[in-house]
């Protein structure tokens, strides 16, 4: 309860906006707008335009003696290449769950991180992985093969040399 004489204004009453306050309001709003815009501008910087990662296309030559259905992993790559009578294919070894590298096993592939298992064609048979391991684009090129980790193909697609 505040006690005051009738007709006087209290410091608790809201102050009316005087005409000269328009100037103050304008500066306030312009500052807010500038802040917002510059925030957007500054947030744009951390999103890279070009990714500084290793090339995704590379040439591979399969060992002559690679038995049918045995995996071959090019050094330094998370990819398994296979060969059988119909041709060659490549399966990505990056787990579709949370990105660990899966290991080829007798029954297909298994992930060490949360126990996802994949069949020989990459389809999920157990665990939390939401998607099959993708098949990567392979093209025959001058006796070897060109693998493109950036492009996927339908499972079952093979390339003959």
């Amino acid at each position, binding site marked *: 309860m505040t006690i005051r004489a009738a007709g006087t204004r209290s410091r608790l009453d809201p102050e009316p906006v005087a005409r000269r306050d328009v100037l103050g309001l304008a500066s306030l709003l312009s500052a807010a707008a500038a802040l917002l815009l510059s925030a957007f501008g500054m947030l744009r910087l951390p999103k890279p335009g070009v990714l500084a*990662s290793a090339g995704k296309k590379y040439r591979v030559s399969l060992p002559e003696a690679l038995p049918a259905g045995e995996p071959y992993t090019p050094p*330094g790559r998370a990819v398994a290449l296979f060969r059988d009578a119909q041709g060659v294919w490549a399966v990505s070894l990056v787990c579709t769950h949370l990105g660990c*590298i899966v290991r080829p096993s007798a029954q297909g592939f*298994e992930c060490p*991180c949360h*126990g996802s298992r994949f069949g020989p064609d990459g389809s999920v048979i157990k*665990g939390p992985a939401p998607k099959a391991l993708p098949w990567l684009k392979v093209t025959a090129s001058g006796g070897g093969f060109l693998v493109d980790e950036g492009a996927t193909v339908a499972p079952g697609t093979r390339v003959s040399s």
Partner: protein
Amino acid sequence: MNRQLTASRALQEFRNNLRQAPRRILESAFRSGRPVSDRARALFVFGNVFLHLHPVRVHRWSLRWTTTLGLGVAGAAAFLLTLVTGVLLMFYYKPYPDVAYQSIKDLHFVVPTGRFIRNIHRWAGNVMVVTVLLHMARVFYTAAYRKPREFNWLVGLALLVLTLALAFTGYLLPWDQLAYWAITIGANIAQSPRELTDALGITSWFDPGGLQRLLLLGSDTVGAEALIRFYLLHVMILPLVLAALLAVHFWRVRKDGGLARPPDADRRLPPLPGNTYPVFTEAPQKTYQVVAIVRGRTPVVGAGPENTLPSMPHLLYAELAVFMLVVFICLALSLAWDAPLKEIANPLVPENPAKAPWYFLGIQELVSYSAFMGGLGIPLLALLGLGLIPYLDREQEGTGEWFAGPGGARLAGLSALFGFAAVVAVEAFAIRFGWIREWFPEAPQLLVTLINPATLLTLAYALFSLWILRRYDSVRAGAVALFTCFLCGFVVTTVIGTFFRGPNWVFYWSAADWPAH
């Protein structure tokens, strides 16, 4: 003659002042003198920019050690320790892949005291996570978040998130196998909204997950860009934001009238010891508060002197004691156990099992059912629920007291029982029988994302709490049930993730049963 005299007097004065200078420098810095009288003690506190975060006098209820268990102060103490040791580590640490690993190795094996400092940093970080979690639980179980402290609860939640973010970003910096794979998993959790957008087929034009991961890593793999980002966050952005919010947090504790206490606290405290210096010697039976006058409230008339004691020494010495205890614990842990350093990061061979730091292993356990739900969905839901607590529970009963309110300690115990049983049952079922994917490999992913052990457990907890809310006809009772259940879920999943998961995330009763490689 006259000139000569004045000159020598100035010389005399110069010599005198020089002799007095050290004492005067001290006096000008600490103007209050020795804190021997009540007045000097007050000056000692509010005349010092660092100490004046404290009130001049504290209520005796706040000083009982059972009120806070010193947990907030312990968290702040651990934060201080990480700051000091972290700056020391920065003398040698170099945030570039492989070089980073070598610099940590140098710190560990070559730099004088390097290993000890690194250990303290690691342990103090762990102690900080533990104490902040316990502090939150104490604030919850004493219902200290209620009006006018709602907003400080929110500030506290932000501090909790920042604490965990600091722990997470720091974990990558050694660039060893442990670090690399924990962060790979973490970054892919950031990307996990794709589990949902992929299932709905909209990822090509709406991909918040991909954007989050890109912003976090600055690239499409964990590499040099990711390391410098994590470094920047860990040594600069997060500590600065945390320190600023900490100032807000402390300031609000004061502005909200000190710590929460029951309305009848004064009656329940034992009488003041006889040798206590009274607050008002001339007994003007009313107290003015500047804040009260600004807000147009009348001064408190007839309330009498409050049941308070001077902060210096009562509060400050108690804080110092808690600080020393934390220092002691961190030093003892650092002498007993070295911070781990595995082999250098190898992007082609995951650590097996790849485990995040222990406080994220509960989440990792949930993630092993669904990346999105376990990693983002449920944690965000829990955070939202925590944030809403003070705005949903507007009751009065039991504020400032342990397990007071409706249901009391019995309700907390009952909820703990249910929370424990539910999480053990769900985990045991999933470990024994597997889940949808094993039974129906063709099942749509959306089904697995929505219905999995993690979401079912959350649902069970929510239903139980609703039932409690209706039975006790109290929102606070429902909140106690939910909070307790989640606490149990967190503890049990963390224990399972830490001690019972082996290679390929398979359940083992003991690490001795792990298959040899």
